[in-house]
């Protein structure tokens, strides 16, 4: 390996003799400056004699966490559209008793409704059509539509007291993912990549997968964007199909042999260029081409289920064999977690049940219940659950009154004042029920958890003081929690 190590990225470059500064710093600063997300990919192999240790990965800005982390990585199962807490996890028998009666003004308290039902003349309460049962030691209630999730109740912490301010999907999802309602700030995964760096040397630190062909409320690439953070921290979307990463595969007609020959000659050319133009950026370039080549095998390996046992595949359910399904993405998430991806963000759209709650909720559950539960079990089986945080939930809840006319096939409008999530794994108190809403499931009455609080807690679990992970942009220090957020001790193990 060359003893000249590039130390700077792109426009700012220099070369430093290994001898002149300590090697570790060199490598580290090179690693921290290279790459969009995939920065440190296989770099250890390329540049370090110590590659066998596999420890040389891109470091985050924090260097080391603020305190001992309970979780090293996150798998976030985002249920996009706003799952109905009232039909899934927040059991409200009183609502069924008052079915058909108007929402009392005393409960609503003048809170703003969306423009979709806000002008309705009549807002009758609707009870859940589903049966509920308590499961696990924490006494959490689960609707009959979530049998597999209910079965792992003792691994979960169910939060019934989430709340937000957003009343629509665009701002709601953006709030949950970036800490602000207006698109443009860094997403949670980008913050973690920025703060903690990579856990793996050969995969991106932040991967996004969206269930294929789901329709539903549109998502946008800003949700996994890096905002004002360097673009290398943005999420890399893995797509279902031949090229999980954009242009990963060689062009038709070019195989590995031909590509390798090209890269070898390019390396020669670049080394020659470096001899006449001694700019460390050229060395960066050589490294990035080699990393790209390495990715062409490491990414397909990570996305290939061939090595999974039949038992594991069956655990996730039949959809697991169809690329792009939620089940396939869940198994993929476990594989990426094993390989050290820091933040694995899944999106499953289709939870926006303005109508047809009795039929639509079981359908969404059928797609997600088994795979989500299987993921937790699988992580537990492989010992990963100890330091992997799994989060399940959407951007808001749904109204306890029906949208439009009351009918057997009723729907529910968006509801920001309370909703439910569950978490499992790294640092979470298992078998817990946290928070409570009023008897009509309209407002939080105990232990409310705001989105900012959730973010503060997630960062806390990863060993980060949310007030100290900041980025100075346009003259001010920004953070994921803006100027808010409190860690929620009640859900911590």
């Amino acid at each position, binding site marked *: 390996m060359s003893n000249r190590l590039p*130390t700077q*990225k*792109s*426009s*700012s*470059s*220099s070369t430093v003799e290994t001898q002149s500064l300590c090697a570790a*710093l060199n490598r580290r600063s090179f690693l921290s400056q290279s790459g969009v997300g*995939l920065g440190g*990919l296989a770099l250890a192999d390329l540049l370090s004699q110590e590659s066998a240790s596999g420890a040389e990965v891109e470091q985050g800005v924090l260097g080391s966490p603020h305190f001992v982390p309970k979780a090293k990585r996150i798998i976030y199962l985002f249920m996009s559209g706003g799952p109905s807490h009232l039909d899934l996890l927040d059991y409200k028998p009183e609502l069924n008793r008052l079915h058909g009666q108007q929402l009392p003004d005393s409960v609503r308290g003048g809170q*703003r409704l*969306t*423009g*979709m039902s806000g*002008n*309705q*003349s009549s807002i009758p309460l609707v009870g859940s059509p589903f049966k509920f049962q308590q499961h696990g030691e924490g006494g959490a209630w689960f609707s009959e539509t979530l049998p597999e999730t209910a079965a792992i109740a003792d691994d979960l912490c169910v939060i019934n007291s989430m709340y937000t301010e957003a*009343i*629509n*999907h*665009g701002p709601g999802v953006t709030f949950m993912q970036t800490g602000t309602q207006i*698109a*443009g700030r860094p997403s949670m995964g980008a913050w973690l990549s920025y703060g903690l760096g990579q856990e793996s040397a050969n995969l991106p630190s932040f991967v996004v997968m969206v269930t294929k062909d789901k329709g539903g*409320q*549109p998502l*946008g*690439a800003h949700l996994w964007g890096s905002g004002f953070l*360097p673009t290398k921290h943005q999420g*890399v979307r893995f797509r279902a199909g031949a090229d999980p*990463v*954009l*242009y990963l595969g060689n*062009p*038709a*007609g*070019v195989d590995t*042999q031909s590509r390798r*020959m*090209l890269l070898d*000659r*390019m390396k020669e*050319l670049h080394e*020659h*260029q470096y001899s*006449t*133009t001694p*700019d460390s*950026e050229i060395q960066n*370039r050589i490294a*990035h*081409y080699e*990393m*790209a080549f390495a990715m062409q095998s490491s990414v397909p390996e990570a996305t290939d289920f061939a090595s999974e046992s039949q038992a594991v595949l069956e655990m996730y359910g039949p959809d697991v064999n169809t690329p792009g399904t939620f089940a396939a993405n869940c198994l993929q998430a476990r594989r990426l977690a094993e390989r050290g991806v820091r933040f694995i963000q899944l999106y499953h759209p289709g939870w926006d049940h303005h109508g047809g709650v009795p039929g639509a909720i079981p359908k969404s559950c059928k797609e997600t219940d088994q795979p989500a539960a299987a993921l937790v079990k699988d992580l537990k089986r492989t010992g990963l659950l100890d330091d992997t945080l799994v989060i399940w939930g959407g951007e808001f809840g749904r109204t306890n009154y029906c949208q439009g*006319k009351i009918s057997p096939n009723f729907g529910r*409008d*968006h509801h920001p004042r309370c909703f439910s999530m569950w978490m499992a794994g790294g640092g979470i108190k298992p078998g817990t029920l946290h928070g409570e809403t009023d008897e009509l499931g309209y407002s939080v009455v105990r232990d409310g958890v705001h989105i900012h609080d959730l973010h503060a807690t997630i960062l806390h679990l990863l060993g980060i003081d949310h007030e100290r992970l900041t980025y*100075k942009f*346009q*003259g*001010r220090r920004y953070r994921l929690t803006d100027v808010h957020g409190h860690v929620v001790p009640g859900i911590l193990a």
Partner: protein
Amino acid sequence: MKTCVLNVVLMLTAMLVHPVKGADRVSFNHDVRPILSDKCFFCHGPDSERREADLRLDDRAAAIEAGAINVNKPDASELIRRVLSTDEDEQMPPPSAKLGHLSPQEIETLKAWIEQGAVYENHWAFVPLKPLPETDQSVTSLIDEAVERGLEKRGLTRQPEADRHTLIRRLSFDLTGLPPTPEDIETFVSDKSPEAYEHLVDRLLTSTAYGEKMAVDWLDIARYADSYGFQVDREREMWPWRDWVIRAFNENKPFDQFLTEQLAGDLLPDATQDQILATAFNRLHQQESEGGSVEEEYRVEYVCDRVQTFATAFLGLTFECSRCHDHKYDPITQKEYYQLFAMFQNIDEAGLYSFFTNSPPTPALELTDAATRERLDALQQKVEAIEKSGKELKAARAAVFDEWVKTQSESLSEEKTTLPGELARFPLDEVTGGKLANTVQADQLATLAGGNQIVPGRTGNAVQFSGDDALNLPLGNFGRHEPFSVSLWLQTPDVKDRAVVFHRSRAWTDAASRGYELLIEEGRLKWSLIHFWPGNAISIRAVDPVPVGEWLQVTVTYDGSSRADGLTLYVNGQPARVDVIKDNLTKEITGGGGDNITLGERFRDRGFKEGLIDDFRVFGRELTALEATAIHDEVSAESLLSVDENSEATEDRNQQFEWYLSTIDEEWAKHLKTLQESRAEWYQAADGVKGIMVMRELPEPKPAYVLFRGEYTQRREEVFAGTPAALSPFPEDAPRNRLGLAQWLIDPQHPLTARVTVNRIWQSLFGRGIVQTAEDFGSQGARPSYPEVLDTLSAGFISSGWDVKQLLKTIVMSQTYRQRSIADKKVMEDDPGNEWLARGPRFRLSAEMIRDNALASAGLLVQRTGGPPVNPYELSESFKPAAASGGDGVYRRSLYTRWRRTGPPPAMIAFDAPRRAVCTAKRERTDSPLQALVLLNGEQYVEAARVLGEHVYLEADGDVPGMIEAGFLRCLSRRPDASEVEILSALYREQLEYFRQHSEGAEQLLKIGRAPRDAAIPVAEAAAATVLAQALLNHDASVVKR
């Protein structure tokens, strides 16, 4: 390892920051302000709301008075005591601020500063520019000298001038965004005259590619995109504005005009279409149409986005903070923020765009070319001529009427039960099989559904509405050229703040109310025809409220004129007193769905809850006043005719005459028919013209308020248009609107406008600005590395008449710019970011340049300027996939790539193109393996390599060194040396061998992209040439400007 890191950091710090020695004069702006701003101002700065202990450190007198500073006595200054304290309750910054401690270095600086008198200085960026010195020296040589002095001070020297191949490549990308052609290179390199370089600069500045290159940076600033953004992110047509920008740069529009037209073109005297088009700049922010969103919430967001973009683009300041509170670091109060807000909100806009129609949100400019304008003018004049002839005809028919009346005395008593032109009448008396009868068209029934009920009415029964259920009538899709009328009885149970009585439209905000509607708003009847609410509509509203619990007879009419005075509202048979609410209808009212009259309910709107409607009638003509009275009085219109020639009641006489004209007079009927036909023709032509969102100032300013915490629901103190006092005085006599704002900006006394602009131009050439934080010239921003260079260029820029091309020329003519970009190792190490300019600019090309370079090298680039956006191949791989454009769309310059905010072009994003959600003054520049994948495997680049391979093969007639040389010139703008020829020859041979053995693979490779393959070249050779070209397009020197 930690110790090692720490040591190195300390070492570097020591190198970069000169320690303050006793004798050194401490500069407030240079040394002290950065510390105070970063560590103290958050709680002890300009923000009065959050100020702790009533102490401010940004104001000398206040800091001294509070005892924080004891002049000349650091040890007796509370400030120093506190930063030294280790007591958690006393130390500053407090542990709760999580800002850490001040370094010993910083504390020493503060001490020295206080010892030397604690002199404050105005923030450098707010100090007005000095005029250029009186000298014969060119600005170019002034800046070279300033840089030389700076280098000398640091023991550095300038690099020699770069070689000619490097210079032409550098200049070509910097001024046109494209590589030089081999011919251009040859010409320049062989031109030995001393003016060769300057001639090249001049030539490049006159190419049309110049405007395209300059536009790219401005599109980032303006957050230009081809879609609305946010969640729904529908496409929208704003590209005519993008083309305006390209034209403006190519015409070298002086920057002060460029700025003024974009901020306030609509307010210029006799504004041209182009000047109004320029104001689209203010409408390029994201917009929302997600169902259920709150209109006012987003309107406020839009205005705030305008303010922020304005501040970043022209002031280089961050105003976002002041939306919620006084700025923590810079002297901008929250009140001042809303004074700017007041200027940017004063247009007739909605906070949501229409989901069900494709109309651009108002205000919109109808964009016409000369021919269309001429045709529209002619059609309008024709209508106006007919209207005028109508007046003459009316005068002429008065006598005929008088005669006619006399002849009618016998028959007048005869009662007529129907009025002419009646299309439908729903007595709403009984339901038969769920249907409500229509006494005019017996087969066109209405259906009673849901919670709407038949209840006792004014006569017989009436319908009482649930508010959530529609009563649909099977007619009513009138165009705006058609006169029509509706008559009904109604009764409201309470004072309605808002209720839909009847309408023809798909929805309220979700369709921008397109259609027509009778509402009760703030208790009053409101009758409107709407293309896009609020900016494109006619609307009148009754002065008197609707009485509660009483039956009211209401007739509304429209005459087909598209004018508010063509709307009439009759209450109980008499014309109602009305206010004109809107009078600007220039586009169709049909479309969007909901093509029939609906009573009592509308999608996501408030229905006529518990309201009653009886006897609903629709007419295909404008009823006259006499008929409105007749309907109310339930008599025939004829019975109201007076035959008494001596009647004093002129008003009655006029009403009778109007009725006569409308119902009896055949000449008048002919006139109306002609008028309607000519209007239809005019409107149809006008409806076909495309609109684009622009600014159009409302005549009366909208009231503006401080919004507590920036929240749209929290209005506080009323504020009026104004600018931040700390920056520059508002020019006397300037209007308090966006035009005045522009005049304020371009005043030569303004400290920021020229500096910020010059800095961005510098940044585009050198990769970083003289002020590194191009987006923040405030207290928290970086200080200029060469203040003198920035100020000299800025003063020169203003005195040149804001001549952008001259500014560019001034810079690129400098020796500073023309240096080699590689210096010796020490210089590179000490100043990796090239802050001190000891070498020339060098950085990776932008996303656009990299792609355009590949297309240009392959001869595929289509150099056609402007037009609708196109989809290159990569959009099929986007998060919101779109098929590649047909024709030559995939070969256009990258700035024409369709920019969809939620699914931007992925390959361009990989090269750090911003998403354009918000104003971006500076792009990131990162390198990654993802970029290698794009360049090696992306369809656009593989195709370009294939075509480039063919070209060089044919040019060199298959001679390998010849191919390599031709390829080098095309991609790298230079000739290869012997080693490079050798390496690439080996590559070609290997690949040729490989493809000879893999002919199927070669065939596949040669099918990539849609450019036809030249069959004259053997397959294996063509494939090998493709890979050869790939090596060139991926070469460092192809993608890096040096």
